């Protein structure tokens, strides 16, 4: 069995091919949106054919950031999926419109090849009401489809599943209480009880939560309004500033990557690293309170290799407060890249 994984982004398309669990090709097509997805997918098809990936047993997995409540799990890419995508489009217009365009192109470029959609938000569909609800009127929340989501559900789900298995092998006799820390461009922390997330730092959009490479993360809502009003940016300008010019890059003063901030010895990164680690500590304490203690800490994401920096800051403090159970003294890294996680979803289905 072989799988072709497609991760459409704002400007580029990442792809990876897997045959019998082994990666056979991987890469990125630049100018994806500019050229149109059809052009990029033709290129991916040619690469996949060149490595002998495409045959009757091949399936395609297409990654989506936001699937809303219409997609509580992976779903076959069929007519019904398009109907559901149209329904969620108003909640995340940019992401979903791009995904619909890509999904149509997938059907054209890979006709007859079974394809599935896998969303980051699916893991969080059943987030408890106390966690997913903002303190506004239910009427307003309904009108805006306003609720909390997480945006790294695929990593959190796979990493916590593996951590849970490991704990059971070591004799844990209750649902595992897992602190899942995803180190990606927009980092995210989730508390997972057994297989169910019960808190997550993400919000109604990926802007809320921990500071990311260019995202501010959580700020006083009054500051957002002041940026739009007093600072004269207007709502769109304020949003653009908070999403694209803030976060770690805003603190450092130029564009930086999360991995560099965590590991750099340059003094310009010190303050950004301290702010990030501080927010991660608070989020970890929050998760510990939500879970009633932590049995395992697992790191994932593009920058999982930098986990030690976070672990050395957060774990001793959790331990001192008493929040770490006896199994959690060692933290683990879930090292699989997102492409491999997506390929696994195809096998699971």
């Amino acid at each position: 069995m072989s799988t072709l994984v497609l991760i459409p982004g704002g400007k580029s398309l990442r792809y990876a091919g897997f045959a019998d669990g082994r990666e056979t090709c991987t890469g990125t097509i630049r100018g994806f949106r500019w050229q149109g997805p059809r052009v990029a997918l033709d290129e991916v098809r040619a690469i996949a054919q060149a490595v002998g990936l495409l045959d009757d047993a091949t399936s395609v997995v297409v990654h989506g950031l936001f699937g809303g409540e219409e997609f509580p799990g992976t779903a076959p890419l069929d007519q019904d999926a398009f109907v559901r995508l149209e329904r969620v489009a108003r909640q995340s217009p940019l992401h979903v419109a791009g995904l619909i365009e890509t999904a149509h192109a997938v059907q054209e470029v890979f006709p007859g090849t079974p394809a599935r959609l896998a969303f980051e938000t699916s893991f969080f569909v059943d987030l408890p009401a106390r966690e997913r609800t903002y303190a506004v009127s239910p009427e307003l929340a309904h009108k805006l489809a306003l609720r909390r989501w997480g945006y790294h559900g695929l990593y959190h789900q796979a990493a916590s599943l593996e951590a849970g298995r490991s704990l059971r092998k070591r004799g844990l006799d209750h649902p595992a209480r897992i602190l899942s820390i995803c180190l990606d461009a927009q980092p995210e922390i989730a508390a997972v009880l057994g297989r169910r997330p019960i808190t997550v730092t993400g919000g109604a959009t990926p802007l809320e939560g921990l500071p990311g490479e260019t995202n501010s993360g959580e700020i006083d809502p009054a500051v957002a309004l002041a940026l739009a009003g007093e600072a004269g940016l207007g709502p769109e300008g304020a949003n653009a500033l908070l999403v694209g010019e803030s976060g770690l890059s805003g603190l450092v003063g130029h564009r930086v990557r999360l991995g560099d901030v965590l590991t750099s010895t340059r003094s310009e990164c010190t303050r950004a690293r301290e702010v990030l680690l501080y927010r991660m500590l608070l989020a970890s304490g929050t998760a510990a309170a939500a879970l009633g203690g932590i049995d395992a800490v697992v790191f994932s994401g593009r920058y999982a290799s930098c986990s030690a920096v976070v672990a050395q800051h957060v774990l001793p403090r959790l331990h001192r407060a008493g929040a770490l159970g006896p199994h959690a003294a060692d933290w683990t890294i879930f090292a699989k890249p997102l492409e491999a996680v997506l390929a696994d979803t195809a096998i699971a289905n």
Partner: protein
Amino acid sequence: MRIIVFNCGSSSLKYRLIEMPGEKELAGGEAERVGPKTAESARIHHQVAGKKETIVVDMPDHATAFTQVMQLLERDPELVPDAIGHRMAHGGPNFKQHVILDDAVMAELERIQELAPIHNPPAVRLVAACRRLYPKLPETVVFDTVFHATIPEVARSYALPAALVAKYGFRKYGFHGTSHQYVAQEAAKLLGVPFEKLNAVSCHLGSGGASLCAIANGRSIDNTMGYSPLQGLVMSTRSGDLDPAVALTLLVRAGGNGAAVEGLLNRKSGVLGLSGMSADIRDVVARAADGPAADIEQLAVAEQVYLWRIRKYLGAYLTLVGRADCVIFTDTIGEKLPHVRWAVTAGLQCFGLDIDPEKNEAARSLPADLSTPQSRVRILAIATNEEMAIARFSYGLLSNTGTQSERIAL
């Protein structure tokens, strides 16, 4: 020294006359419905030595309310104040200490009043009226933000571009500092711990505003409120934490009317928005238990969201503080609602919290220790007394026995 302490609300004026340093309360009361006429008459509930009276009188502004209160006190020569202490919600970036009022302080108060547009302007007008009408009485100003001046830079920073922060002053200030500091000092006395060694999480749960404060070695190191009192916990009518993108979406839908969105998030959200029936969590808890079936689901969610936010921040701050000596509950909800104290601490044995359900339910006379003997962290309910705290600070400043006023750099 008799100090009259004023706590100025947007349409009310609470006052307490306190003899210092003996901390004896001589008189107190509240002027209600200060401002434009309402359906009911403005009135002052005045109390001296347990004797209560209500005076109906027009009070179109806080200056009039102040004059009326002073006239009530001046009926008895033993109740004439020697000094005035004011509560001020926001001290801005420059007031890092409480201060004795002078021209420079007055000018700075007027300059920064829009940082807290609901709370500061009426208090500043009151300060000005007191100066004008009683120029010989010394006045002090005690700020809710001063206790939080010790919050480290890493905790008070938003992840925003430095130039923007420098220009507009976006940072966490924290609020309710006078209350947090007062109850933490009381807790230190109860536990026999020097205040400068106390590690604690203080939960100021008011019927209106609410915040948690992380305290390490007697100093505030974080507070759930932020640049404004909107951030943090779910409050009676304030949303607390909200995705900033949602605030901006609301702004677009309101046609760019920022005041309308601020009004929505500050006055129509929180417990009121969630429940649709009351801004008071006590009503919600009662109705969720006994109310009509049709309401129960919505009310139960409102209650859960309110409690869950407290619990999450409690975990965050216990982690931050490390080995906490105590968790303190105070103000109306924290002092009077055992259900809330129970719901946010139960199951947190991992943090060393073990609440005794019987002690918790029975706690009527405060202070009270609600924890089991096995609890590593003491769980305390302590009545806040911001007026007493203001009197203490004021006496310290005026008698030169306490912290010296720090002159602001203008």
